[in-house]
C-alpha cells in the first residue's frame, strides 16, 4: 500500500507519458503559477483549468481511482491551510478560493508525478540549475523512502509475529519502539551512506 502511494509512476505508453519530462515539468509549473495568480473569484477560469486537467488525466489513461486516491492523500494539507482562512473577514469566500486553487495545483502535481519518472524530473531540476544541494536531498529522500518503507514493514511484521495479546497499551508501546528503532537505524544508515559516497570520491 505504502509503496503504491510512494510510487505513482507506472510505465505506460500514453501520449502524455511519452512527452519530454522538461515540457511536462515546465507546463505544470506554469499551470500552478497561473492558478495562484488568478483573481479570487475567477470561477470560470478555475472550471476551465479543472477541465483541462481532467482532459489530460483522461489522455494519460491512468485509472481515475488511483489519481483520486493520491489526491485525497494530500488534500488534508490543502484543507488545513484553507481552514485557517476562515478566521479572517469574508472567510468563506477566501476558504473556497484557497481550497479550489490548492486542489487544482495538487491535482496537476499528482498528474505530473503519475506520468513522469521521478528520476526524469530530477534530471530536469538539475538541468535548469536548481541548487544541487536541494536536488541531491530530493534524490536521496526518494531513494531511501522505499528502503525505510521496507524496513518499517519488516519490523512491524516481526513485532506482530511475536505479539500474543490484544492489549492496546502494549500495542502503542510496541509501535513507539518501532518508531524509535527506525530513527536510530536511519541515522546509522545515513552515516554508512555518507561513508559509501566518500568511498567513491565524494568531496575529497
Amino acid at each position, binding site marked *: 500500500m505504502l509503496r503504491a502511494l510512494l510510487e505513482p509512476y507506472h510505465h505506460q505508453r500514453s501520449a502524455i507519458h511519452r512527452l519530454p519530462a522538461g515540457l511536462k515539468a515546465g507546463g505544470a509549473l506554469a499551470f500552478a503559477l497561473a492558478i495562484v495568480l488568478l483573481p479570487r473569484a475567477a470561477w470560470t477560469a478555475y472550471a476551465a483549468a479543472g477541465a483541462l486537467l481532467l482532459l489530460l488525466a483522461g489522455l494519460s489513461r491512468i485509472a481515475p481511482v488511483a489519481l483520486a486516491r493520491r489526491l485525497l492523500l494530500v488534500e488534508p494539507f490543502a484543507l488545513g491551510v484553507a481552514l485557517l482562512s476562515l478566521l479572517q473577514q469574508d472567510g468563506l469566500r477566501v476558504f473556497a478560493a484557497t481550497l479550489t486553487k490548492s486542489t487544482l495545483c495538487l491535482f496537476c502535481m499528482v498528474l505530473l508525478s503519475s506520468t513522469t519518472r521521478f528520476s526524469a524530473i530530477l534530471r530536469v531540476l538539475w538541468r535548469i540549475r536548481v541548487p544541487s544541494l536541494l536536488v541531491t536531498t530530493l534524490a536521496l529522500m526518494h*531513494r531511501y523512502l522505499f*528502503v525505510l518503507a521496507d524496513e518499517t514493514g519488516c519490523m512491524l511484521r516481526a513485532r506482530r509475529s511475536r505479539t500474543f495479546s490484544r492489549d492496546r497499551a502494549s500495542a502503542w508501546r510496541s509501535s513507539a519502539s518501532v518508531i524509535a528503532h527506525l530513527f536510530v537505524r536511519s541515522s546509522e544508515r545515513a552515516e554508512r551512506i555518507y561513508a559509501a559516497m566518500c568511498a567513491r*570520491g565524494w568531496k575529497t
Partner: protein
Amino acid sequence: MNALEVQDLGYRYPDGTAALRDVTFAVAERERMALIGPNGAGKSTLLLHLNGLLPEHPDVVPAVHVFGTPVAEPHLAAIRARVGLLFQDPDDQIFCPTVWEDVAFGPLQLGLRGADLAARVERALDQVGLQGFDERLPHHLSRGEKRRVCLAGLLACEARLLALDEPTSDLDPRGRRELKRLLESLPVAQVIATHDLELVVELCPRVIVLDRGGVVAQGPTAELLADEELMLAHGLERPHILRHRHPH
C-alpha cells in the same frame, strides 16, 4: 611495489573499545587475499581503513599504504580512486535514483563526462551481466542484482585494489558462481572479507585470520583452513572442499 601495506594498525571505537590491534600484513599487486574470522572480529572495520574512511582523526604516522601512497590527507582523493570498497549492505551503497546514475557516480567524481563516461558505465554493467539495467530503479532490484550494481560502481572507477565486504552474502548459487568467475577475471588486487570459506579456497591463495581485532594467523589458504584446531578456536570451520581433498 605492494598493492597494500598495513603496518601495526590499531583502532579504537569512539567509546574506547579496541577494534583493531597491531594488524600487519601486505597484499601484492594482483594478489587475492581473504580476510576471515568470526563476527565482530574487526573485518569490516579493517576494510574501512583501506581507503581512509577510518580513522576519523588520521594518525600522525599512517599505518596503511596503498601502492606506496600513505592513506592520509592530502592523498585521500587519489587513494579513493584506486581503492574500490564494497559495503556489506547494498542499500547503503546504491544511493542514486537509477542504476546508470549510480554506476556513473564514481567516474563522475573522477571527472569523466559525455561519451567517455557512458562507455565506462556500459562496460562496467556489461562486466557484471546487467546489460539493459540502465534505467532500472534500485528498489526494484533483487538483493543479488543490487550487489552486482555495487560492484559495477567500483569497476567503473577502474579501482586497482578491491576491498570486498562479504561479496557473496546475498547471492544465489548462480550469482555466486558468476561473481567468483568475475573476481577471478579481474587483474587487480583484492582483499575479500567473508564467511564463505569455500569461496576462499577456490579464489584466494592466501588468507588472514582475524579475531578480536588482531591477526591470529596468516599464510597459505590450504594450510590454514585445514588446521581444524585453529579454525574451531576462532569461530570458523574446516571447509568441506578441503575435507574431500586427500593428500596423495
